[in-house]
């Protein structure tokens, strides 16, 4: 039984009006393995998983699903769940105001005499939490858990349904390194208990760490599938098949010619708006030169985003002191508006919720942060708006044929380009980019890196927050590390080294530069 197939998807074709989302896709998963699926955004990974889990019912696609040796014709998720297939989505689906127990048995309540048997439910919940290595009171409300723990509870919920095939869609995209490692370890543990896992992931290092086989999907077609020995994944090969071209270098060559210091933050102190007396920025000081790309590294909760948002017009937290100097002169940025006017731009990490208005089209988004520039008298000049948007669409290579296209019709990478264009149009001197490549596929990432390089070459000061260390090391000139609201150190390009950086990110004693 060791290598029998638990799942075969044969010739799956799924057509949406006008688009062939999946075209004759084949997927074979061996029992008791972790099978990774990778591919660019929009390649059809999620669609394939939705076909498998019955979100798209039998009949709405062509092809066969053979699961445990039988052909399956799922009409909805309930049926696939009954068969032991569970899917854990990128966006968690827990209800924050309910407890762990309530969430685990939601829709699947243990009922005795018409009432929910909480006693038994809780007992089961404790057992399940034990299995996933979470040592928490099952009465805890979900909203009080971290994202990593919530994800574990999702898995516990799947286990409660006696899952045989667990699908995880980008499971670590929102997790920090420690939580990710924990989750991957748990997945290995599940496999030992004869639960097969399918993992959709962008992170090649994770695939390398745990996966036993990889299937690459591109443009709705299976490109290749191969077995790997754990730890021996050829990352370049995966990237080549994902993008259909070889990327010699994942990061463009960046020649830095830093000028004078143009942006200087000193002794910045900010209090957490939610927890009184907790400082989220403790006396932070840093500086950026013109034409320089400065990275900020830190684990989740280190306060990188909070620091930048508090600098960006006190958009976050309660200001307790500190100064900002632009070209040597102190400036006062008390509102987002004044920050924009004084040449600071901030591209937020959460593109969908903070970066743009999804109801808008490209042209409205492009000018949204600098409407003053297209005013003629008191009225907006819509022709000028069109010209500006068109210019940015072309120079940023946004893949769509009109600036009147809605933002929802764009892929993540193209959305991000438009958002970058929106901030470039404010003509900033300092650009703060918060996770600019999150959720973006490899090809688009490269384009974004080139763009960042161009901005630096134009003499702008670029601040880059990223959770991907290779990315930070790949394009920054210097990197600051943050740990729990304190800047713990800074290293220059010559001394770049992942282990050293990680040490500084986790340990305050890392003051050495």
């Amino acid at each position, binding site marked *: 039984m060791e290598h029998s197939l638990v799942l075969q998807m044969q010739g799956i074709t799924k057509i*949406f*009006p*006008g*688009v062939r*989302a999946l075209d004759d896709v084949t997927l074979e998963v061996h029992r008791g393995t972790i099978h990774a699926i990778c591919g660019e*955004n*929009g*390649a059809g990974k*999620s*669609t394939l998983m*939705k076909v498998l889990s019955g979100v798209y019912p039998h009949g709405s696609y062509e092809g066969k699903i053979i699961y445990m040796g039988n052909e399956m014709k799922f009409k909805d998720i309930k049926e696939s769940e009954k068969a032991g297939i569970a899917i854990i989505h*990128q966006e968690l689906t827990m209800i924050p105001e309910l407890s762990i127990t309530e969430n685990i048995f939601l829709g699947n309540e243990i009922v005795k005499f018409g009432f929910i048997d909480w006693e038994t439910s809780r007992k089961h919940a404790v057992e399940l939490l034990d299995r996933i290595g979470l040592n928490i009171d099952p009465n805890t409300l979900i909203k009080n858990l971290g994202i990593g723990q919530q994800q574990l509870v999702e898995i516990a919920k799947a286990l409660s349904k006696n899952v045989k095939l667990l699908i995880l869609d*980008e499971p670590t995209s929102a997790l920090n390194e420690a939580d990710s490692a924990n989750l991957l370890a748990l997945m290995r543990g599940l496999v030992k208990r004869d639960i097969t896992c399918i993992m959709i992931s962008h992170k090649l290092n994770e695939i390398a760490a745990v996966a036993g086989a990889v299937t690459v999907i591109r443009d709705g077609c299976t490109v290749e599938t191969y077995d790997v020995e754990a730890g021996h994944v050829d990352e370049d090969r995966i990237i080549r098949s994902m993008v259909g071209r070889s990327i010699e270098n994942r990061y463009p060559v960046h020649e830095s010619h830093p000028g004078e210091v143009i942006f200087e933050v000193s002794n910045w102190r900010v209090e957490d708006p939610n927890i009184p007396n907790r400082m989220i920025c403790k006396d932070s000081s840093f500086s950026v030169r013109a034409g320089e790309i400065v990275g900020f590294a830190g684990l989740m909760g280190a306060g990188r985003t909070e620091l930048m948002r508090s600098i*960006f*017009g006190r*958009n976050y937290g309660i200001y307790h002191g500190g100064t900002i100097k632009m070209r040597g002169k102190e400036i006062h940025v008390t*509102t*987002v*508006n004044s*920050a924009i006017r004084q040449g600071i731009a*901030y591209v*937020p990490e959460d*593109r*969908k*919720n*903070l970066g*743009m*208005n*999804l*109801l*808008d*089209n490209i042209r*409205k988004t492009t000018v*949204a*942060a600098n*409407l*003053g520039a297209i*005013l003629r008298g*008191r*009225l*907006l000049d*819509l*022709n000028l708006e*069109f*010209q500006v948007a068109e210019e940015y669409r072309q120079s940023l290579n946004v893949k*769509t*044929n*009109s600036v*009147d*296209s*809605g933002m*929802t*019709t*764009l*892929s*993540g990478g193209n*959305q991000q380009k438009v958002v970058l264009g*929106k901030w470039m149009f404010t003509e900033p001197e300092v650009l703060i980019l918060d996770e600019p490549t999150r*959720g*973006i596929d490899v090809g688009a990432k490269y384009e974004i890196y080139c763009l960042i390089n161009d901005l630096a070459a134009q003499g702008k000061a670029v601040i880059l927050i990223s959770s991907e260390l290779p990315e930070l090391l790949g394009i920054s000139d210097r990197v600051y590390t943050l740990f729990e609201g304190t800047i713990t150190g800074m290293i220059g390009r010559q001394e770049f080294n992942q282990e050293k950086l990680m040490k500084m990110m986790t340990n305050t004693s890392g003051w050495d530069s």
Partner: protein
Amino acid sequence: MKQIKKVFGGELRQYSMLIALVVITIIFNITSHGRMITPSNFQNLISGNTYVLILAIGMLMVIVIGQIDLSVGSVAGFTGMVMAITARDLGLPWWIAVLLSLTIGAIIGAWQGFWLAKLGIPGFITTLGGMMIFRGGVIWISKSISVPAPEELRMFSSGYLPDWGPTFTGMNNSTLLLGIIAIFTYAIMELRKYKRKIKMAGQKEEFWPVLVRIVLVSVVIGYLTRIFGTGRPGTSFPVSGLILVALVIIYHTITQRTTFGRHIYAVGGNKSAAALSGVKVDRIYFLTMLNMSLLAALAGIMFVGRSTAAGPSDGTGWELDAIAAVFIGGAAVSGGIGTVMATMVGGLVMAVLNSGLMLMGVGADRTQVIKGLVLLVAVAFDVFNKKQGRPSIIGRLFPKKEHKPEDGNTAKSSS
């Protein structure tokens, strides 16, 4: 079909409610044996609904920012009563009474805006409170008795434009002049738009759709001019209608062509993203609520002028008519979507329904039932359209071929 698309600029769907308006008007004209499309009925239709349409303009903006205002009926009643009482008891000239009443409207708006913007109380609650406060207020200050309104107001709320000049035109010459101005303004605007499009690089445009558009609109305006201008001697396009048209033009411009207008949509579409783009969200909330109550005061004054007296129950239920007009016009409950023009069409659909059903002798009871059903059908139609992946009101912004179907029910940007 392709030609028609060129003329109307892409999507015919956005005109669906306008087409529905024309169709029901024609149907009512048939069922009422020609009593629907008559000068006097059209004149009444406009002057009798101006107040709701004025409210709907403000309500559209409130709904676009993702809020709702339940107090507009009470505020309109209250401010109308203030005007009538100050004019009668204090002997103020009518125009001072009107200004005073508008000022009080603005103050009430500031009060509601304060609770919403500064204290963060949801608009629903803030204005539910306002609805009770000002309904109570109007009964209190009027002691439950109607108060006569200044005579001069009738000119604005149910008056007509003067007749002058030659009689060979066969109609009211003021109305004729208005029609001609309207046609010319439209033609000039279209031509300027065309010229600018030509000037922009890469935009090669054909001229004939512009011409067809101008001819079509001229015919429609000409036809309406004839209807409004050939009523009883001494009647014309109503003055209140003129005030409404002016407001529509002003507010259309504000919402579509000013920074403030853009900010309204930005706040309604995504509050946090708007804040991070430098929009002062609180200020937008405050001003939108202030504007709403100001327009409510104007609506109240117009109504009082037309009915010649301010009553303690004036304005009851108006908020619901205004909200219905906005939603029939395709606005989104969650905010961020909707236009002044579409709202006016929505309001006129309600007005035509009222008028047509009355002409047919359908009672108020059944009229209410039908209006309710129309609201449901209209919004369901809109929701259905959006499910097809295309927001209907801004549908023209989304040409067909760029539509990539989402592989889920929500707009996902990553997979």
